[in-house]
């Protein structure tokens, strides 16, 4: 029993998008940002070139004005997209993989393995992420890789907890017992029997983790813990605050980067809630009345503080 047995298949991806305004909106916005990240840097001047007077308001020469150093804000925002998204996606992917590894091992083997791994997971969950990330990042050499590593260390635990619970539930199912009885190895069962049944959760977690990663990355870099010679949305905000953009009223230096972070986050939330509507059996099977109610809820990712049960 593999992926084919998932509860229902509703057409293809195209069908899904046509029926689901929220998901298509989110995906469209993400594709736009992806395109900017890929080809944008070829169309703008070098982000660190000093092109004009510092703190110039938006004009025809500089559509989004200039920074406190005299660099082009539009160029910085566009070029920053690439590394920001790369770190976000990379960290999101890594936290899900690491969380899955720990969570599924704990959930599948149970007993003492579970006790130890769950304890570690819970300790990581209760230690506040940002202060830990700050201390870690301060000791590592500054750079995108360090930031990514730190965010994976502080971000995997929630994924592990959710996937452990899911594995525990699937472990009780008959098809897993059948595989155990037929003498399959544990690794094979986890990868071939359990994993395919968790794909929807994994995708939801990937989206949630990416939201977390982008937000936390911007926070760390805003503090000055990133590599300040690279251009990301976070370092843009760091420089804006460093050049006292607020005191001089230079709103155009910090507005674009923050807005980009929020738009990407919002697009991911939209994609997630659209995805949830289609794949979450609880939102579909409990009668039209109930699903109509719950379906209106926008399910937030992990960047918000509330962890939905």
């Amino acid at each position, binding site marked *: 029993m593999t992926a084919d047995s998932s509860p229902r298949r509703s057409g293809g991806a195209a069908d899904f998008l046509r029926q689901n305004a929220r998901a298509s909106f989110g995906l469209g916005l993400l594709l736009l940002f992806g395109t900017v990240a890929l080809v944008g840097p070829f169309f703008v001047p070098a982000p660190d070139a000093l092109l004009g007077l510092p703190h110039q308001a938006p004009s025809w020469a500089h559509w989004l004005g200039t920074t406190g150093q005299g660099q082009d804000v539009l160029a910085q925002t566009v070029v920053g997209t690439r590394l920001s998204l790369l770190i976000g996606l990379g960290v999101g992917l890594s936290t899900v993989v690491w969380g899955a590894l720990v969570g599924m091992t704990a959930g599948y083997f149970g007993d003492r393995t579970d006790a130890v791994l769950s*304890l570690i997971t*819970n*300790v990581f*969950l*209760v*230690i*506040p*992420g*940002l*202060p*830990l990330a*700050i*201390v*870690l990042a*301060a*000791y*590592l*050499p500054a750079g995108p890789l360090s930031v990514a590593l730190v965010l994976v260390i502080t971000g995997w635990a929630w994924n592990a907890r959710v996937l452990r619970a899911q594995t525990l539930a699937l472990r009780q199912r008959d098809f897993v017992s059948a595989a155990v009885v037929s003498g399959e190895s544990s690794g094979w069962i986890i990868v071939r029997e359990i994993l395919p049944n968790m794909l929807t959760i994994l995708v939801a977690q990937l989206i949630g983790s990416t*939201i977390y990663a982008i*937000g936390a990355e*911007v*926070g760390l870099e*805003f*503090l*000055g*813990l990133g590599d300040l010679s690279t251009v990301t949305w976070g370092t843009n*905000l760091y420089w804006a*605050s460093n050049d006292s953009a*607020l005191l001089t*009223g230079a*709103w155009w230096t*910090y*507005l674009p980067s*923050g807005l980009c*972070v*929020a*738009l*990407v*986050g*919002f697009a991911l*939330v939209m994609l997630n809630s659209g995805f949830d509507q289609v794949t979450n059996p609880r939102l579909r099977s409990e009668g039209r009345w*109930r699903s*109509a*109610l*719950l379906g*209106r*809820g*926008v*399910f*937030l990712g992990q*960047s*918000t*503080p*509330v*962890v*939905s*049960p």
Partner: protein
Amino acid sequence: MRFLLGRLGFYLLAAWVTLTVNFVLPRLMPGDPAAALFARFQGRLSPQALQSLQTAFGLSHASLASQYWSYLARVAHGDLGISIAYFPASVEEVVASGLLWTLFLAGGSLVVSYLLGSLLGIAVGWWRGGWLDSILPPALAFLGAFPYFWLAMVMLYLGGFVAGWFPLGHAYRDDLTPGFNAAFALDVLRHAELPMASIVLATLGGWLLTMRNSLISVLGSDYIRLAWAKGLSPPRVVFRYAVRNALLPSLASFGMSLGFVLGGSLLTEIVFSYPGQGYLLVQAVRGQDFPLMQGIFLAITLSVLGANFLVDVLTAWLDPRTAHP
């Protein structure tokens, strides 16, 4: 009682892990932060400070085990070493000066956001499917996608610089001396309005949705139907019967979200030059003040652990089922 003892044991374990991470980290990291520091502060540090740095970074020649024991003993006595950025003040003095402000800002915003969000969640859950329900959740989700500190920057710019309605930063006016009097308390509140509002705005959506969804599922249960059948008034059914139970799931996530909110409020403090841990943290990062960074990390983590335990006590008291499954 057994439940609470178990939780207490867990938090003690988490605290021990935190302390150990704090000890191991400087000794594990590539490069040599201590050597770099020595080079930078050549001749500027007192012998006493140098020695404190050496023990903090494990440069003493004692074995790791004995270093670890003396470290634990020092922390137990509240000795976190000497700050570099605020030399010659000790780390614990510097951290203590900002801890109350941070707890006030983060705790205050969390409580306001929880109450306001839950109230809105009740309204939205009650009139589900109405116009409020279709506008509020997506709007707040959009606001929640912004980084806290960025929202704070925009609000400071609009409410502080452009409109001039709010003070531009700090926790109180320079010409006031801190004390327990009405004028000072009012001024502190006035300075906290904008930072708190920015955190509340960013976190409101989560509470609203948790409350809304749990209220909807509680409203469908049998004892609510009984309450209706008894002919009770709608406010009584909602607040006395439904909300009391619907509050429990969001209370459970209260403790964990404290960690998130504290992290966010650290960054918000920087925007408002609020004299809490976040502001100290920036000074520490800029000045490469590792002892101070670690002290802040310890203080915040231990506060969060303590708050989580308090929430557990509260939950066990409000919902005996958690303690006796």
